[in-house]
């Protein structure tokens, strides 16, 4: 499978005080492929938005590389280089109310990127704007082009934001909670649009969300983040139906499932927060909430280990590395 964006060892530490650092992202590695939607799921504070923002070059990482078209984008400094990367890797934000200029028309929002990046000759700009509106389902285009953001519903605004991102013909789209502020009846429409665009334009999508049911609906691949680390990754169906990591199990069991009632059986889990880790000590970051924790968990940080084909987790119990398996066996003998 070809690669659109290769993320390796991405790390971002934010200072909280002079001596303390929040590890918003630690050693995050994954690959985005054309024609594939990859979901990055986790709770607030898990670092998922930080990762998306680094990929969009809104933050510089503390460490790690983001390779696009053979070049490390985190080192790109020249104006042309940065402009090229930014046009190819576009971001859609959560709030379609804040991301559009209230005093400009829909047409203005779509014409601007076309002109700045010189996507089409001047006389074709108008036609291209209409094409873009068509492709995101805002039809008839002539009706929507002269409208102002306040004349549109939330779902329509998000479609304009997507059309604007598509204007520069990107290869990668980063969508940070693109439907969480929309009404439920509208959400499926946007998710279907993502599926359609992925196929028609061979886009590589990173879908950042806390809603794993919607992630299941659109995503081919899934990354689960907890406290700055990817704790599980693999094909969506495998991760959701046979989760390796206890945190993934917790996430799955927390989703409302009509018909079963609140008291469905699920693994007991201590309360806690998936908040970003401040100066995390060595060991698994989930250990205090984990029902499966064993002695080694609080001493050694687990690596991402591929315990099943294409499915990996950071867990000494369900996906132990060979060295850990060796160590825990020694413990059992004693």
């Amino acid at each position, binding site marked *: 499978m070809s690669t659109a964006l290769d993320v390796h060892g991405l790390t971002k530490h934010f200072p909280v005080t002079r001596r303390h650092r929040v590890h918003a992202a630690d050693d995050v590695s994954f690959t985005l492929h054309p024609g594939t939607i990859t979901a990055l799921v986790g709770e607030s504070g898990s670092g998922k938005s930080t990762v998306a923002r680094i990929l969009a070059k809104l933050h510089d990482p503390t460490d790690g590389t983001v390779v696009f078209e053979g070049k490390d984008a985190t080192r790109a400094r020249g104006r042309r280089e940065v402009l090229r990367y930014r046009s190819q890797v576009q971001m859609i934000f959560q709030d379609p109310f804040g991301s559009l200029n209230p005093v400009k028309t829909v047409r203005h929002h779509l014409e601007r990127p076309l002109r700045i990046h010189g996507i089409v000759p001047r006389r074709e700009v108008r036609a291209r704007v209409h094409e873009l509106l068509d492709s995101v389902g805002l039809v008839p285009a002539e009706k929507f082009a002269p409208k102002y953001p306040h004349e549109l519903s939330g779902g329509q605004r998000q479609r304009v934001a997507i059309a604007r991102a598509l204007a520069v013909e990107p290869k990668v789209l980063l969508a940070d909670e693109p439907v969480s502020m929309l009404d439920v*009846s509208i959400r499926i429409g946007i998710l279907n649009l993502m599926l359609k665009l992925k196929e028609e334009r061979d886009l590589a999508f990173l879908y950042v969300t806390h*809603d*794993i049911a919607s992630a*299941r609906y659109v995503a081919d691949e899934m990354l689960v983040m907890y406290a700055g680390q990817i704790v599980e990754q693999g094909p969506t169906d495998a991760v959701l139906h046979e989760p390796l990591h206890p945190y993934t199990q917790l996430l799955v069991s927390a989703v409302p499932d009509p018909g079963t009632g609140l008291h469905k059986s699920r693994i007991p889990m201590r309360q806690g927060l998936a908040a970003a880790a401040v100066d995390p000590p060595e060991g698994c970051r989930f250990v205090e909430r984990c029902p499966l924790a064993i002695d080694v968990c609080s001493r050694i940080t687990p690596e991402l280990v591929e315990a099943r084909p294409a499915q990996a987790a950071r867990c000494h119990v369900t996906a132990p590395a060979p060295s850990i398996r060796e160590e825990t066996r020694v413990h059992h003998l004693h």
Partner: protein
Amino acid sequence: MSGMVLREVLRPRATTSTLIELERLVVDYVLPSGRVRAVDGIDLRIEPGEIVGLAGESGCGKSTTAQAVMQILRSPAQVTSGRILFRGEDLTGLGKEELRKFRWRNVSMVFQSAMSALNPVLRIGDQFVDMMKAHERVSKNDALARAGDLLELVGIDRRRVRAYPHELSGGMRQRTIIAMALALEPELVIMDEPTTALDVVVQREILQQIQDLQRELGFAVLFITHDLSLLLEFADRIAIMYAGEIVERTTAATLFGNPLHPYTVGLMRSFPPLTGPMERMTGIPGTPPDLAAPPAGCRFHPRCPHCRVEDAALYARQTTERPVLREIEPAHHVACHLFE
């Protein structure tokens, strides 16, 4: 949390008569450009100890309904007609001081954004003290001790009475608000999207806690949300609102097994399932109507898959005649021409 602590803090109560009854309630926003009817003649009963869910999209009138029950509507919103009966007494006729006593003691409310419901420059404990002192003669020390008990009731360390709101996580702030809403042992707690701003795991914990407390203490809950999947798990009865009207009203079990109104069916098909086969879903086409100029006839007809010109007789009624909420089967009310 032990049952003993619970009983010490709050006593369960046993009551029988209907708690809240909305009769043909109409709420208008009176604007210079004209009247916008946000709530258009709804009927809803809440029995003691019952969890009633009110679901619908933004702008359907569900929060306005909640504010009307709490009698906290502010200009330009006003109750134009209809009655809000609390144990048979019409709240719309009460004076300011009577309402002040009624609020929080009889009916309390939990808002969506806990951050703005708490005063950022006051310690948590002092906010409890203020609220209790507004309603009863109580010493500061006693009030603070009660505040500690209430925090423990919702699973927060009692020492947090000394904390400021910014020192608590979002989930803890929302729990604090819930504890505050329970402080005067109200008979009804209105919850307006109490968990929408929270993560799924925290949301699940808080819902679980609300349900446990509700079973223990017996208060009724009016739970307002756009997330129908949540209500199906959590509520006893559910009313679905669309464009200011209740379009379907029945038990959670019936709604799950046999949703009838095309809007309800559309809402149910808007949630991708987490288990079972995955199909392409359609959601509901179009957008909710502008309440300043709602469509004639059935307000859902422009988005309804069963409204087709080819079916001339039905189409004429759908586009000109307002459907009335009627009982289709026992305890199952639907407002739709398809079921007449």
